[in-house]
């Protein structure tokens, strides 16, 4: 049995707690949260051992791994302490607000030989995994452009001040929502060499952003655009969509289904055909041992447990892959602060019209 503790009992922490506690190869050895009330209720009704102090928990509880789901600004110190203690670590996203720290922690995890994973659960969604597989097969030829979108109804009015309402504490649409499609872009296209046109706009929030737009530039002329808004009530819940244009076709994917158009120039993968192909979640999703709120949440924790138990070398959502997303986020913040690269009063270059070719020779004289 693998002994795991859950740290931070917000929405994600409680969800992880429920899923991991039901795992047949795991003993939930402790939970830790700064506020005692929820802890006391949990202890009273489920008997789980509780701590209000993280360091005390590390000293006293016998653990193999921790799941860290505290406010983002607290991740760094906790991850470091857990790694120093020799524990495997699953950390919620975004990994760290400080890109230098992200890199250091990724290196430390490698040095310690610890299983290290960040909760970018979309990499465990069947449809998004199928996108990755198709791209690796080169099914739609050379990719030129990706549009990554996410919309949902999180902030629909001005709210009181918590860590979630302040960008400096890791709150906002960029860290919370946009991190997911950005992470998918990192997965599909790698690390961009630059960003531009970043817009971090507030709709309702006073101290952070509610909508995020921008362009990411990748090697080989590939580029991506991101459009994210968490103040959109027309969506029932968070909805993430990826559209990819290639020389030999197009892919559109969300959590429920993948739609693939293949041209006659495409390398057509097994089970696919020329023209439109539709595959949906029932077909693409592997069943999980215990289900609470979507297969991907169970699958990512089951994968974490398997990586510990079987010492698997592959490392989906490793700290270093999450550090890429942290870096893109930081690049977009820096870019947005600069504002537009060309303004209305910039002196614009005059286009130089080349007088050659058939038209110019026809119309000259």
């Amino acid at each position: 049995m693998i002994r795991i503790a859950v740290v931070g009992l917000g929405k994600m922490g409680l969800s992880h707690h429920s899923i991991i506690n039901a795992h047949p190869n795991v003993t939930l050895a402790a939970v830790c949260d700064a506020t005692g009330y929820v802890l006391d209720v949990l202890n009273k009704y489920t008997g789980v051992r509780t701590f209000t102090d993280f360091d005390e928990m590390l000293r006293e509880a016998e653990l193999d791994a921790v799941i860290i789901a505290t406010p983002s600004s607290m991740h760094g110190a906790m991850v470091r302490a857990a790694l120093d203690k020799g524990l495997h670590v699953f950390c919620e996203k975004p990994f760290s607000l400080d890109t230098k720290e992200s890199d250091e922690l990724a290196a430390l995890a490698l040095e310690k030989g610890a299983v290290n994973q960040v909760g970018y659960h979309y990499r465990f969604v069947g449809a998004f995994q199928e996108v990755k597989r198709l791209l690796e097969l080169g099914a739609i030829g050379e990719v030129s452009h990706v549009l990554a979108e996410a919309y949902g109804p999180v902030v629909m009015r001005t709210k009181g001040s918590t860590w979630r309402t302040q960008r400096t504490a890791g709150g906002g649409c960029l860290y919370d929502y946009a991190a997911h499609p950005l992470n998918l872009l990192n997965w599909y296209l790698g690390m961009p060499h630059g960003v531009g046109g970043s817009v971090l706009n507030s709709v309702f929030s006073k101290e952070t952003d509610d909508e995020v737009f921008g362009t990411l530039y990748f090697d080989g002329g590939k580029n991506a655009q991101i459009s994210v808004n968490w103040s959109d009530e027309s969506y029932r819940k968070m909805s993430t969509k990826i559209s990819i244009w290639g020389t030999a076709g197009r892919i559109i994917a969300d959590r429920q289904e993948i739609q693939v158009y293949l041209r006659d120039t495409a390398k057509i993968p097994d089970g696919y055909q020329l023209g439109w192909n539709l595959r949906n979640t029932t077909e693409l999703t592997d069943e999980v041992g215990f289900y609470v709120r979507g297969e991907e949440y169970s699958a990512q924790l089951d994968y974490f447990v398997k990586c510990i138990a079987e010492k698997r070398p592959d490392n989906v959502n490793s700290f270093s892959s999450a550090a890429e997303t942290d870096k893109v986020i930081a690049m977009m913040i820096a870019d947005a602060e600069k504002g537009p690269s060309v303004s209305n009063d910039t002196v614009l270059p005059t286009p130089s019209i080349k007088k050659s070719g058939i038209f110019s020779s026809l119309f000259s004289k």
Partner: protein
Amino acid sequence: MDKLLFGDNQFFGVNHMSEEKARSQAMRFQDIKTVIEVLDNAYDEGIKTFMCTTHERIALVCDHMRANPERYADYKFYPCMPYAHKYANAMTDHGLLGAIKNFLPEEGFIDSAMRGGMSLAKKDIEGITTLLIDAEMKMFAGLQTPVIFLQNVVVDFLLGLGFNEAFRIFANHVKARYGAEPGFITMNMPKLLDVLEELGIENPIVCANINKAGFRMSGGFEAYEASLKDKKFRAIAMSVFASGAIPPEEAIEWICEQPNIESIVFGASSRGNIRSTRELVDRYWQKGHAKSVA
């Protein structure tokens, strides 16, 4: 329970196959009249139980039923609570405790204040839980609610935590206050049945995905088959078409052959689909039940 129950996913933009389809359904059912029209179609096909989320728009359906008692004299609601997104969104805002406080009645009788206040102070969840149930049940006042369900997100979340006492509190309150049978919706049927058995909740009503494709049957297809065969409980099968992955006739024929299925809950948006599902169930139900008993 009737052998066919009418579900409500189609009315609220829930579709496990396609977000586009979900959105177009949400648009179609924007006006509550269109929802009631479909419910009337189902009623006229003999499907007189509506198994519905405690979504705020259901209150409008309830108003309509109360206003037309002759038309809906034998109409039954099976409320499924809570509408989870409401709580999930509030939890991001206010934390777990804040979210709960948010949905407790703001003003009320001394009873509510006592149940809520004492309960919070003593870290005793019974008072709070019963208050939340009462808040969700308000919209059904004066209507028949012979079975009241706890939604799968909550059931499975509590099941994972090992917060089993909550099931007993729910069951007791629903029986005592509403004279109703408690029901539990789950994506982890075999595990839940074990826990309910331990708690001494006898012959429970459990609604779960049961389909030929094994879609969202956590714990595994074989464990579901074994539970249906050996456990004493009243099963309601949902997602029998596995969100459209199984052709209707094949899906219905298979589900009717399974032992211990007391009802099937399904959603449909047109009279034609409602009728064809009813006809399939009429055709295979007796045949299947004869076979499963034999």
